[in-house]
């Protein structure tokens, strides 16, 4: 049982000076606070008294309260101050980061399953599948991407031809630049660069479109109306992506070959020779293998873009974050898949 007699003015400065002492005594329990000798009392003093009262488990007593002190204390008590807001969450520990990544992986697999189920049930849900959406997406992701694909293809062809020309010429092997560039375009660069363009142009657009619908609760509205969002929103984009990417890859390969031919012709190699080399080098397996990869990349980019849209969170920045995630995810997935396909094609002897 502690008996504490405070002196001086119990204002902001006085309360601060007494704070530690009073609170320590209060936490020990059984405190009698004597305010008979104080010379001033304001809300800071009242805050001290109330804090001590809260901290003191049992036997808190006030002595020597004047009329003024009682009134101030009653007024402050009446404020019913809400507790301070919880501090912002601390930075995540490595366990939490690993946990979050693992759950993201699980959700990704679940999404993949959902898409597969939606494809399987498509015959029963035909009417949820909107052909207009498919055509519109094919137009936006495909037809409208052609100028960009042409330009990129041409420049990549020119750059590759120039770069390989310099060392090859030293060996007098400049005619083989045609082999190098055409096989590189057909097997790797055509599909890969097309997928990167698709991720940048359309993966982000899918994420933004679906993300905006999510933020507007349109996805919830679909659910309450009995409509499967994956069938209605994801499948048309996925199919459009699969159909459009190989076509764009072919256009890019043709533009690249044209760029390469321009460089070679400018360096004195007749275009008939270039054409001969290309036809002799690129076999159908190279070409169709490349197209298969393009379709696969298109599926990955579309699916990841839609997934980012469906996973959009709350708040004004959420749609932007989803669009970014769609582009990054699409490009990373494309390159990872390309690596896997390189191993697969090697094993298959293609």
């Amino acid at each position, binding site marked *: 049982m502690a008996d504490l007699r405070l002196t001086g003015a119990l204002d902001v400065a006085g309360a601060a000076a007494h704070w530690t002492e009073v609170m320590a005594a209060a936490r020990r329990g059984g405190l009698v606070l004597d305010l008979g000798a104080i010379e001033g009392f304001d809300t800071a003093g009242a805050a001290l008294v109330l804090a001590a009262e809260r901290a003191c488990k049992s036997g808190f007593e006030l002595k020597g309260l004047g009329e003024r002190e009682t009134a101030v204390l009653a007024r402050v008590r*009446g404020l019913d101050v809400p507790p301070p807001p919880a501090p912002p969450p601390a930075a995540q520990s490595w366990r939490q980061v690993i946990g979050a990544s693992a759950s993201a992986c699980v959700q990704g697999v679940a999404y993949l399953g959902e898409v597969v189920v939606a494809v399987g049930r498509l015959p029963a*849900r035909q009417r949820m599948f909107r052909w207009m959406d498919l055509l519109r997406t094919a137009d936006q992701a495909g037809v409208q991407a052609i100028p960009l694909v042409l330009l990129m293809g041409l420049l990549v062809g020119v750059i590759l031809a120039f770069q390989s020309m310099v060392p090859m010429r030293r060996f007098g092997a400049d005619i083989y630049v045609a082999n190098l560039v055409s096989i590189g375009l057909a097997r790797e660069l055509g599909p890969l660069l097309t997928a990167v363009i698709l991720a940048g142009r359309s993966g982000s657009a899918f994420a933004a479109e679906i993300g905006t619908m999510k933020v507007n609760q349109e996805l919830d509205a679909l659910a*309450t109306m*009995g409509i499967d969002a994956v069938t209605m929103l994801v499948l048309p984009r996925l199919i459009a992506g699969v159909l459009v990417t190989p076509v764009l890859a072919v256009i890019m390969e043709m533009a690249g070959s044209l760029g390469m031919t321009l460089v070679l012709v400018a360096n004195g190699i007749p275009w008939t020779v270039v054409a001969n080399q290309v036809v002799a080098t690129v076999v159908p397996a190279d070409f169709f293998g490349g197209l298969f990869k393009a379709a696969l990349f298109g599926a990955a980019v579309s699916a990841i873009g839609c997934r980012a849209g469906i996973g959009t969170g709350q708040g004004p920045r959420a749609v932007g974050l989803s669009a970014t995630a769609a582009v990054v995810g699409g490009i990373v997935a494309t390159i990872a898949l390309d690596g896997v396909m390189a191993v697969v094609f090697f094993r298959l002897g293609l």
Partner: protein
Amino acid sequence: MSITLDRICKRHGSATVLSDVSLDIARGEFLALVGPSGSGKTTLLRLIAGLERDYDGTIRIGGTDVGPIPARERRIGFVFQNYALFRHMTAADNIAFGLRVRPRATRPAAADIARRVAELLALVQLDGLGTRYPHQLSGGQRQRVALARALAIDPQVLLLDEPLGALDPPIRVELRAMLRDLHLRLGLTTLLVTHDLGEAAELSDRIAVLRAGRIEQIGTIATLDATPASAFVFGFLGDSISLPAPDGKRALIRPDEVGLTPGDGPAVIIAVHLGIRQTRYTVQHGPHRFDVVLRGAPHPGLAAGAHCTVDLSAARIVSA
């Protein structure tokens, strides 16, 4: 259909959104859920609709436990605060969409769907506007389309999530009347989430007041007003003056039930605030300062600085 909630608990991470909420909504009843932001009323609605999962407790609609039933199959009409209309479809297509996508076995014929859409448009007083796109409609009209869309699937229950929250006051009054009319005509079990107590009082049979994930009190507006279960309910139902009572509790009084008599008295008018057909006086009485609302223009004897007597004879005093 009746709705029964039995001991519903819902957590978001470490935060408890709903704790131990039990509620019985009779068939055909109109129940309003009111409460401050973050009290869990929207979450409760989304749980019933199946838009949120992972909760403890049971939700029954018409006696069936809907826990394992996905939102798509619950046949619930849901109206959102921000309309959530499909922007690339006309109003009529928005309404018809839920019917058109049904599998062949349960899908009405095209002519029946068209008739149903026309009926619904008439029901929400939007005849002739079916060919407009959402961006060509006003907020009130959009919400009417959303309501028609929710009703189109012939729902078992109707859930309204602050349907009038985004609208201007005059439109709100108009739509309120329409909602009441619809409920009288269709008799659907309806749950309304709202901030606006006036809306809840006008539309609903009973009101449930939520606070921090718990039901604080449930009853008719008359019950809530006459016997509030707590200071919180009293405060939620309107402005209140809170004064220390002699027994250590707080006495709660409505500021418009207090009278002020000009002349010599212990109370002093600190400030006078003009209102619409009413005036709010800030009064200092001993150590207490509170606001009193009197009808009519400012009284000449009650200017700032004037003395007066506080009259509590007409006031109901609730202790909490």
